[in-house]
């Protein structure tokens, strides 16, 4: 089976600036990888590239077997992203937003309701306009949309930000369930402590490159190991 993410010397430009400057990364299906690094390291750009929201500027890049140079539309249909923005419409209620994204993704009707119930977005909250929600509540709605879509690759950018303790715990359960079901999960964080209990691997980024990789002892016995593929990409799965 092809890896969920396969980047080799991948470059991504924001304007003329190479936010990714030759990143190498392989993420296998069913694997949870946490990407850490300081602000400006390229974590969000890495996630946006993997989501098909931006075109690679060089190197080789494929997600779920689709070439990011040619097939970004196919990638976007199969991934789910929880970003800094919630991607929601302020002038629609929580339920209307969830139904819109469910219809757009051609999900069965019950799928989004079940996700909403799981995230506690029913009753009065469901009828509330998204524009009136707190940052944490917006994030819960975005998470419900992501869960309902059951993507093959989860891309989570600082997923614990603004979430209360209960929702953080639920997020951990959802990520574990998704990985067990075969989805790959890529989590970007500059404070990875909250995500580490979920992770199989910790990847460090700096200056737009992957600079370190470490298997996590909770999941593996061999500690810090990196394997280099013949094509130069790095994997430990």
């Amino acid at each position, binding site marked *: 089976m092809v890896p969920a993410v396969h980047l080799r010397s991948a470059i991504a430009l924001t304007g003329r600036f190479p936010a990714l400057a030759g990143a190498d990364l392989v993420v296998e299906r069913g694997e949870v990888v946490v990407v850490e690094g300081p602000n400006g390291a390229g974590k969000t750009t890495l996630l946006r590239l993997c*989501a*098909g*929201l931006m*075109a690679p500027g060089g190197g080789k890049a494929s997600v779920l077997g689709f070439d990011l140079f040619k097939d*970004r*539309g196919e990638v*976007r*249909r*199969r*991934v*789910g*992203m929880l*970003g*800094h*923005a*919630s*991607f*929601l*419409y*302020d*002038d*629609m209620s929580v339920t*209307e937003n969830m139904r*819109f*994204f469910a*219809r*757009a*993704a*051609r*999900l*069965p009707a019950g799928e989004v309701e079940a996700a909403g119930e799981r995230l506690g977005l029913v009753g009065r909250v469901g009828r509330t*306009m998204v524009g009136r929600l707190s940052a944490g509540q*917006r994030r819960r709605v975005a998470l419900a949309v992501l869960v309902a*879509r*059951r*993507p*093959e690759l989860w891309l989570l950018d600082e997923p614990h930000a603004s979430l209360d303790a209960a929702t953080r715990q639920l997020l951990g359960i959802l990520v574990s369930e998704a990985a067990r*079901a*075969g*989805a790959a999960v890529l989590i970007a964080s500059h404070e990875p402590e909250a995500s580490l209990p979920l992770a199989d691997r910790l990847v460090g980024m700096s200056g737009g490159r992957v600079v370190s990789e470490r298997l996590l002892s909770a999941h593996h016995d061999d500690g810090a190991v990196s394997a280099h593929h013949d094509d130069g990409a790095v994997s430990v799965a």
Partner: protein
Amino acid sequence: MPTMTTEPSVWRDAWVVSAKDLRIEMRSRVVMNQVLPFGLLVLVLFALALGPGRQTLIGAAPGLFWVAVLFSSVLAVQRSFSLESSDGARDGLRLAGLDPAGVFLGKAGAVAAQLGALEVVLGAGVVVLYGADVRSLLGLVAACLVATVGLAAAGTIYGALAAGLRVRETLLPFLLLPVVAPVLLAGTRAWQAALGSPPGAAGGASTGGGDPWMGVLVVFALVYVSLGVLLYGYLEEAA
């Protein structure tokens, strides 16, 4: 773990996007409460500028109607794309798995529906404020329908083009108004024929009947709808 249950359908996606945009307009009423009064204000200001002479106003009515529609259409298109600029909604729409041609048709359809409602009120405004006589209601409606399709399609293309730019609010009128000049010209001529306005009253040229100008509107609409269906995906990627 499939995320889709069926193959993409352009018309279905268009309906989903159009219903979303119209639902938001029903809630926020930005077009009805801000764009429509703006259009009416344009009609009133032109009437003040031209003076009380009835013949002058009747002669100028078709042109002034379409100028008001064009200015209003810029605002309606800006509003349509501002919906997608808040809290990353544009990225959310791209990630939603919709066919780009469906997104184009949906957004253009919603803009057309709002412009259609505006045109009804602005048309009534022309009759009331300028005292214009309607000789062919069918001609007026036909010109409006076809021109609205063209305006909405062209506006959606240029709205998408400007959407990713920081200067989108000022760039859109600069890009769009020259492009839709044929609608102004042909719509004015078609309305002159339908209103029976005196030849040359609104722009110095003879009307020469409305039919050839209806043809211009039809070609304009066909060209921009086709361009949008074919190119919207590329515009989304490039913006």
